[in-house]
């Protein structure tokens, strides 16, 4: 069964999600990866406002390829999330509701997700041309000099994702392979 979720991700929708749930996401999300995260944290250090609200919002770790004429965005699959780990707990403490990426997260990120009730979704790495079809619009809202790493506001419709780590700290990267191993041994 695939569960359809709406963004921003308010707590009543976020908290019941469990690792392994197959979902689609519809609504507004923001993109940021390595260089943009560094700048967001620098803005916080300087006491300056961020270019987008954090409360219940979802950040997608993506640096899309350029949009060809007639399409809102180029290919847009997830990048590997651990590179954002050092910045993430602070953003979660300020209300960030979820992240979309791929790959493992640090214990510090998972602990912050539990504390603040956030969800880590996986998008399929390498399904980038397909995922682009779920993007209805794309607008650069900050750091345009970063090119593919600029912060973008995306409107997505039925963007396919999987709950990788839920707000209880259950982790599909541990549960999934373990379950397959048990099945194979039976």
């Amino acid at each position, binding site marked *: 069964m695939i569960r359809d979720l709406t963004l921003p991700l308010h707590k009543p929708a976020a908290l019941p999600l469990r690792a392994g749930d197959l979902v689609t996401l519809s609504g507004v999300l923001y993109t940021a990866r390595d260089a943009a995260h560094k700048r967001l944290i620098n803005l916080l250090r300087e006491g300056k406002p961020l270019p987008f609200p954090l409360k219940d919002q979802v950040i997608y770790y993506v640096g899309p390829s350029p949009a060809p004429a007639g399409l809102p965005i180029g290919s847009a699959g997830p990048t590997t999330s651990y590179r954002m780990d050092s910045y993430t707990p602070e953003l979660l403490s300020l209300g960030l509701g979820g992240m979309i990426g791929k790959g493992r997260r640090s214990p510090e990120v998972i602990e912050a997700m539990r504390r603040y009730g956030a969800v880590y979704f996986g998008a399929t790495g390498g399904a980038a041309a397909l995922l*682009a079809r779920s993007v209805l619009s794309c607008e650069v809202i900050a750091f345009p000099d970063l090119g593919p790493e600029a912060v973008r506001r995306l409107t997505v419709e039925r963007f*396919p994702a999987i709950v990788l780590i839920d707000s209880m700290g259950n982790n599909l990267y541990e549960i999934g392979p373990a379950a*397959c191993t048990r099945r194979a041994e039976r």
Partner: protein
Amino acid sequence: MRELPVTDVQAAVRGLFLQINRRVSPDIEAAMRRALERETSPAARYVLTQLTDNYAAAAETGLPLCQDTGMAVCFLTVGQDVHFTGGSLTQAVEQGVRDAYIEGCFRKSIVSDPLFDRVNTGDNTPAVIHLSLVPGESVRILAMAKGFGSENMSRVFMLPPAAGEEGVLDAVVTAVREAGPNPCPPVIVGVGIGGDFETAPLMAKRATARPIGVHHPDARYAALEEKALERINRSMIGAAGIGGLTTALWVSAEYAPTHIAGMPVAVCICCHASRHAETVL
């Protein structure tokens, strides 16, 4: 002596990168469809279905298969009786890469300085160029677009000779296990054994371009490839690392003579969209 205009090289490089970023090779597509057929985990099937649907999405839109269109790597195997005319061979390769990445609307992912400035060069150059000279008068160009999700998970192990076959298998399985979901499994694994600190990874990277289903001609290395693949897939890391039957599509090993005191082992991990193609001029 054969004269070859460098513009021919430029055009070939451009064509190769336009092709590989948009179309997966038939052997990989077939292996991915087999992985989907045999998969039993619903979540892994969800992922593998998206990945096989992605081939059609890229073909229909002209978008690259992955937004990370990689660092452009070219292995040039040049016949020593070729004389390149009309300019610099290196600049011709760079121009071919530049042309493909701009024309193809591919992402430019190269920064000029790795540590301090990290300013994007804007055209995905410079490329990584490996040149080797062989007898004859043809030029073979192997182009690879290497994404860094998987490149970051590649490893070099300087093993002692006593580590033996088990040591090599351990190194390969360790690299894939510790990489887990990060390099976009199902992965293709290239293993370079022997040589020295820099030849082992070169062999490993080149090995990732060997077609799926083609083993090393030496039966002992072919058996090693089989064992490594079997052990990797026993990990059940699966597609996207969320648990499944196919963690690696293939393992290719290459070897070279080495020193009496060592056995370097390099493990190059490549994502399921292993983008490479070869042409001969």
